[in-house]
């Protein structure tokens, strides 16, 4: 009987200690890092093809800051408007425009082929490249960039896509910097892009 009397409180104590320790770890990770971790983990490896059919990865964009926007060509309003806005801002950047990469990633790879993306982007500033891939590859990059997208079925096989309508601005080190939300005024959007261009390493 003696050992048992000892074991129960010890076990309870151990349990209590573990609980407190777990809480502490949770509290630290929550306060100290959760929000920051979520932001700093935006971005990551991907493998896609660009609108010329060439294979692209995160390394293709390495060394230059970049602006990345997720959308689809069947989108009649927000996507062309955003790409047109971006085209206007790129023009306003002047020579600084070349310090950045600009990427339009489709969330509708089933319809947005390499050819479709290429034709579509010919209507916008030539700096903007289009990326597409397999559904699994698109799912991977969307996950990496914390992009929400969802296929919404309509009638007779038609569908639309819900998707995040923000432009991600990423640093030359592939680290998240900020976003340009939908309908950002020209002045602040250009200021953000300018500031990103200035972050380009001079080497």
């Amino acid at each position: 009987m003696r050992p048992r009397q000892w074991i129960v409180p010890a076990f309870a104590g151990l349990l209590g200690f573990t609980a407190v320790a777990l809480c502490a770890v949770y509290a630290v990770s929550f306060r100290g890092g959760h929000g920051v971790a979520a932001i700093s983990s935006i971005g990551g490896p991907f493998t896609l093809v660009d609108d010329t059919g060439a294979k692209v990865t995160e390394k293709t964009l390495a060394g230059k800051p970049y602006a990345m926007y997720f959308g689809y060509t069947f989108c009649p309003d927000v996507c062309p408007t955003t790409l047109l806005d971006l085209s206007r801002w790129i023009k306003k950047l002047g020579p600084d425009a070349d310090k950045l990469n600009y990427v339009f990633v489709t969330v509708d790879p089933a319809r947005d082929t390499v050819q479709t993306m290429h034709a579509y982007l010919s209507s916008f500033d030539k700096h903007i490249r289009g990326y597409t891939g397999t559904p699994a590859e698109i799912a991977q990059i969307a996950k990496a960039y914390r992009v929400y997208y969802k296929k919404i079925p309509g009638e007779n096989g038609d569908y639309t896509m819900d998707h995040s309508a923000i432009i991600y601005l990423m640093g030359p080190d592939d680290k998240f910097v900020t976003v340009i939300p939908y309908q950002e005024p020209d002045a602040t959007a250009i200021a953000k892009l300018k500031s990103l261009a200035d972050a380009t390493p001079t080497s």
Partner: protein
Amino acid sequence: MRTFSKLAFAALLIGLAAPAFAQGASSGSITVEQPWSRATPNGAKTGAVYMTIDNKSGTADTLTAASSDVADKVQVHEMKVENGIMQMREVTGGLAVPAGGSVALKPGGYHVMLIGLKKPLTTGEKFPLTLTFAKAGKISVTVAVQAMGASNAGGAMGGMSNMGGSMGGSMNKDNSGGNMGKMEMK
């Protein structure tokens, strides 16, 4: 511009609603004003048509269908951006046009969605669109295609925004129906 906007407003009052480009039309108590669209990017398969639908009668009506030769299918859609997420849905059951009120179809909200464009829409082009209302029947309008970045029917005309303001003022009092949440009046 002032003179123009007065003239255009006067034209609206007598139901012509046709500032140079768009060709609106009316049937019974329903008036369709300034139907316009945007030029589409190369290869784009969809486009959107915007307009204001006015209902002068004492009974509500519903836009139930639309058709056009330029696209395989035409539907009424609602678009919105919430928490940074763009959402677009077909308006099921038709788009209500309240009695004595109006509904604005405009960028960022309701639009007539052209699906399966047979060719890109180009700036300056015009094309026919037929709208079907539950009570007023069919109304045919001519849609004027504005530049890709246009934000209203009068992309080329500075006086339009003034006119929109006076229109809004004169119609606001009528918009007290249960559909306010869906109205675009500001």
